[in-house]
């Protein structure tokens, strides 16, 4: 069977297929690609453009850099929007200064907090990405926006960490704890319970670094009681978190050949991306790593998917039914959305792709959302030609 797989893999490679493996394992032959249906391309102001999108309850919080956060109805009904016809509900340009210096709002990412205890849906957390040197320094605050009135959002609070800038978020909503990757600052846990107002920097519960020179953390995710962190330099970590107190459960340092990027953890597996803005050891960031989680949650690498014609796997996500894996890819002719079936979650198989070409650099972030029974993929197309790309991938989700 192994040799048969190798033969099929060789044939696919010779045909120019973009999927291969770099870990000695070989993927099963991919099924015929399903249909990726283009739904819409929503232009975003070229004020840098779009960086990320947070979709919840049929609302898309578009992180539009210096144009701020733009709230679109993409199926909620509040403004008659659909995925094919998004309708703007509200917009806010958050504070455009950092430590007194005018840098622009630089709205990078967002999380709309649904508090299951108070049932409030009041706060939107926004990450501001300031300037930085990859692997060494970063800047940018967390801005708290009151979205009680979605048509008129208001900034109400700010979290700042000296010497580091924020990146991607995850939340323990029932405990009202916001976890933020903080690049050279590692991981931060913040108490966001109660009313948020003014400077909330004192609400930091704990922080954890992976060591000087080894810390540049891209993203975090809670899963099954652990907080998982993907660090660009030191790899994939499992952390303990008890009410926000952070400690190492399983050491990283497990992706030495490439720089790490995003992560998604689900169903006993984790999927992590790699970044290739600069080739580490001469190796591009074109790999998606597949990890199996042990009984205690520690990750073990079980497979990799290498995509030719890209240099970065910039965002990773799995659909809510754990059937479909998606990653976004940048910088190269195969940049765009890539979809893999998780029939065998340890060995994803190619299901489809949607490539973007022309002047754009690719898709920087990609997010699933199920709206009116259909599974959609939303993606941030890089400038120039910045846009929110919306795809119907329901047929792939089998």
């Amino acid at each position, binding site marked *: 069977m192994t040799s048969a797989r190798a033969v099929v893999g060789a044939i696919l490679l010779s045909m120019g297929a973009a999927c291969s493996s770099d870990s000695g394992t070989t993927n099963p032959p991919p099924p015929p690609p399903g249909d990726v249906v283009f739904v819409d391309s929503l232009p975003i102001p070229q004020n840098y453009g779009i960086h990320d999108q947070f979709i919840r309850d049929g609302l898309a919080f578009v992180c539009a850099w210096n144009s701020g956060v733009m709230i679109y109805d993409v199926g909620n009904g509040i403004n008659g929007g659909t995925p094919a016809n998004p309708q703007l509900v509200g917009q806010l340009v958050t504070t455009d200064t950092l430590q007194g210096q005018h840098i622009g709002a630089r709205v990078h990412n967002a999380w709309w907090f649904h508090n299951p205890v108070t049932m409030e849906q009041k706060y939107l957390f926004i990450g501001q990405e300031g300037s930085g040197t990859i*692997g060494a320094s970063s800047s940018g605050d967390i801005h708290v926006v009151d979205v009680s009135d979605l048509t008129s959002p208001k900034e109400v609070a700010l979290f700042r960490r000296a010497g580091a800038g924020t990146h991607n978020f995850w939340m323990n909503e029932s405990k009202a704890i916001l976890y933020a990757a903080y690049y050279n600052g590692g991981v931060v846990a913040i108490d966001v319970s109660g009313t948020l107002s003014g400077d909330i920097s004192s609400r930091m519960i704990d922080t954890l670094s992976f060591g000087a020179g080894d810390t540049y953390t891209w993203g975090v995710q809670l899963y099954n009681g652990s907080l998982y962190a993907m660090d660009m330099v030191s790899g994939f970590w499992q952390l303990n978190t008890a009410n926000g107190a952070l400690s190492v459960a399983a050491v990283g340092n497990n992706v030495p050949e490439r720089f790490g990027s995003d992560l998604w953890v689900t169903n006993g597996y984790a999927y992590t991306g790699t970044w290739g*803005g600069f080739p580490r050891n001469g190796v591009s960031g074109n790999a998606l790593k597949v990890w199996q989680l042990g009984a205690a949650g520690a990750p073990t690498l079980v497979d990799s998917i290498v995509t030719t014609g890209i240099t970065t796997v910039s965002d990773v996500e799995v659909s809510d039914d754990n059937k479909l894996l998606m990653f976004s890819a940048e910088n190269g*002719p195969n940049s765009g959305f890539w979809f893999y079936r998780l029939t065998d979650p340890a060995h994803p198989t190619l299901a489809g792709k949607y490539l973007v070409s022309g002047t754009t650099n690719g898709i920087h972030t990609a997010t699933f959302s199920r709206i009116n029974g259909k599974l959609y993929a939303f993606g941030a197309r890089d400038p120039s030609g910045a846009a929110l790309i919306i795809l119907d991938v329901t047929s792939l989700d089998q």
Partner: protein
Amino acid sequence: MCLPGRAVAQRVTAEWGVQAIPAFTETNVVPGGRSLGELRVVQPAVMLHAAAFGDRLRLIGTVDFEKYTIPHGELSPGSWGESFEDRRHPHTLVHELMLVGGGRRLFAAAGKGFVPFGTDDPMSRPTVRFPVNHHLSQILERAVILAGVRLGLVLLEGALFNGDEPVSPGSWPAWDRFGDSWSTRLTVTPLEGLEVQGSYAWVNSPEDRGGAAPADRKASAAARWERGRWYGEVEWARTATADGAFIFHSVLAEGAVTLGKNRPYVRLERSDRPEEERLFSSRFRTRRPLFDNSILGITRWTVLTAGDALDLKWGRLRTTPFVEASWIGIARVGGGVFDPQVFFGRTRGVALTLGVRLATGMRMPRMGRYGGWPSEATGRMDMPMHAGAEE
């Protein structure tokens, strides 16, 4: 109407000139750790300087054809800017089109051209290879309105312009951004032949035409000597980007002397540059606009260049063959993932250029200054790259 040299039609004077430099460059400082040699025609330009009303109204135009001769840039280790790295970017087709009015004491200018900041454009200096600090020490190809006032030995200039740098050799400034950036330059000439300048500029979002990139705060100081056979310049420049998140320094010294038909020259510089993500399609290109406004690190380039030019003349054609060699050292400054040893396969290297400067008509004037105007004509100024042979 135009003849090589000066054409005079009643009260209108005009000069024009043409130049091109076929040059072969070989270097072992190349992305991927290899050697590369290329023959290209660089700095092809047609210049027109016209004046009227007793030189009180002047038109200065330069058309640069690098859009056609080096669309992918000139092989030039350390060069950077306008999405090119280790290749010097082609200049825009309409390199300079300025209308200058006034006299020696008070003048104003408007059009597309040089901002009063820093030192002369490298095209009008002895060394053919551009210095690493081009984007630290000059601001050019902008929509600019400037004014200057001269009091005795002191010249003060100020300008408003658009911060966005060209996005392609065919591009024009983003007109809606005119006035979002400014500069000022103070020049003192205490002795004949000696010129000292200090300048400052605030440049809004130079690397994002839409205006979303950080601003640059630029400073420059220089002393320039040109008299008789000798030319020399020392300069310092500093650019702070994103309110000091990134700071780039440069120091440079260069000199030349005319020895008969020979013009030996030397330049030593140490300049910082940002390292940015290279494109999949070309490791000589970077993303624009700069992604996330983040960089991969800063490298410091130490470049020692020495060369010799021989000024010959065939009829109206000035023919100046030259050879120049550079020793190049690359070091990391601060942190970041960029490692020149990994990227170039080395941290020290060399570059060699053989070429010939072909020119006719007016000589290349000092580029970057609209206030220094010879009283007798339009634009006739001896330039340090020229040997002693006269028409």
